[in-house]
């Protein structure tokens, strides 16, 4: 079963045609990397998967995005976003809330827990899953703004997975982190893919090679090549892909 499928997807910002007829199939419980040079439309593509793009009034989408076979455009956007979590390039925990509340907020407001006890358990579970529990278990009530960048990003992962989504979108989750923190996030990705499908955007081919099972190469809004990660890295079929992987392109 494919977690996400796009059918002849076109995306425009006003008159700027940014995604040009992308057909993708993202198999369930894999790590799927989308790579490509800056400005090629990776973030735009990713944001269409959870209908976050619709926050932008200029954005227009044609074609279809399917979540486990169902068109996301026939679903309530809120339901889509509960099933498709997202982690952003800039860690964005809510700085005025405590660490605990950051994770608890989505659970409470989406009424996913029935009791205080269940809330506490789920928050703990999510923080453990995101390898943050040991570092924060004694300061759950401190503001999230007191964490380091890497910790903030793991808190964002905890916040997303607390809702038990089926898919997790990650838009360059390590781009603003130091190497050690980045490493931790990559390790986390291995752990998480047992339970869910991860789509990660990166402009580092090396990172795509380390973490992903499948990789898609996007260039100027077109899908140039997609396939198993080893195959693409060992034997790219398109010249553009090879150029990109060998660093001969921006």
């Amino acid at each position, binding site marked *: 079963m494919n977690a996400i499928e796009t059918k002849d997807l076109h995306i425009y910002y006003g008159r700027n045609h940014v995604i040009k007829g992308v057909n993708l199939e993202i198999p369930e419980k894999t790590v799927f990397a989308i790579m490509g040079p800056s400005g090629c439309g990776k973030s735009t593509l990713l944001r269409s998967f*959870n209908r*976050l793009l619709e*926050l932008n*009034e200029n954005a227009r989408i044609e074609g279809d995005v399917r979540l486990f076979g169902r068109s996301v455009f026939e679903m309530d956007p*809120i*339901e*889509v*976003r*509960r099933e498709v*979590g*997202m982690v*952003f390039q*800039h860690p*964005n*925990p*809510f*700085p*005025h*809330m405590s660490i605990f509340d950051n994770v608890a*907020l*989505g659970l409470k*407001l*989406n009424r996913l827990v029935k009791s205080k006890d269940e809330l506490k358990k789920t928050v703990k579970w999510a923080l453990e899953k995101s390898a943050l529990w040991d570092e924060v278990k004694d300061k759950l009530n401190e503001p999230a*703004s007191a964490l380091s960048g890497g910790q903030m990003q793991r808190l*964002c992962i905890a*916040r*997303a997975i607390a*809702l038990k989504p089926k898919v997790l979108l990650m838009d360059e989750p390590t781009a603003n982190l130091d190497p050690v923190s980045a490493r931790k996030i990559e390790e986390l990705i291995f752990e998480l893919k047992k339970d869910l499908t991860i789509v990660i955007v990166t402009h580092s081919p090396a990172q795509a090679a380390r973490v992903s099972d499948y990789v898609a190469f996007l260039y100027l809004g077109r899908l140039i090549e997609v396939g198993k990660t080893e195959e693409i890295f060992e034997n790219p079929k398109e010249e553009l892909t090879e150029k990109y992987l060998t660093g001969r392109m921006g």
Partner: protein
Amino acid sequence: MLVRKVKERLFLAGITILTFLTILPLFHIIFSVAVEGLPVILRGGWDFIIGTLAPPDDGLGGIGPAIVGTFVLTFLASLLGLPIAILTGIYAAEYPNSMLGKATRTLLMIMMEFPTILVGLFVMQILVVPMGSYSALAGALALAIVMMPYVAVYTEEALRGVPEKYREGAFALGLTRFNVVFRVLIGLARKGILTGVLIGIAKVAGETAPLLFTAGGATRTYFNGIDRPVGAIPLLIYDLVQQPYENYHEIAWGASLLLLIIFLAIFLPLRLSLKEVKL
């Protein structure tokens, strides 16, 4: 080389003097109000705060009804004005490109600059005339109308100042727009919104014009119902200085100092404590 240095010096001296001239009136006001008002308050003592107005040419008495009135009017005005103003600000921030959103923002800007005496006239027409009497309610409504644009504009700006990444983060959690705004963004913008609220309150606590034809004024009876006339410190000062009695002028100075203290008590802590939340 030398010419440039001299020019620079002259320029610096020039703006220093101009700056000084600009703020001079402020200090002069504070200084003269303190010098004239303090002895009055000290002489009047407690009675000055809680008593009622003395007869012409006979001692100080007190300005209790006006003080209470100012607090009542400000409180009622906040009750009437703040919820609507904050919601208006939220609307303008959330729908900046809609027709109504754009219109709201323009209207707020006009309202901010609107002559407040006209607000008083308007409320007199719709409330005082039909009710047949000046009232605390009418005064509070006029103040609420004066207060609203400040609060709404500050709310809007505070919300628009919240970085996009937090909005997106909140929506990505599957929150409804209502929850995104009320459970996340408001919290992030709370300092800015609170600033607006306090500026609005400080502004109307010192207003005279909107009260002239609405609150009516009362110097010897305390607040006794929202449908009854009520006093206010600025209104009292306005009345007293027009009268020919020496003691009324003294009382006006004392009242001015109290008004200044109330104003500074709202304003100074606000200015001093407002370090924005780091985003």
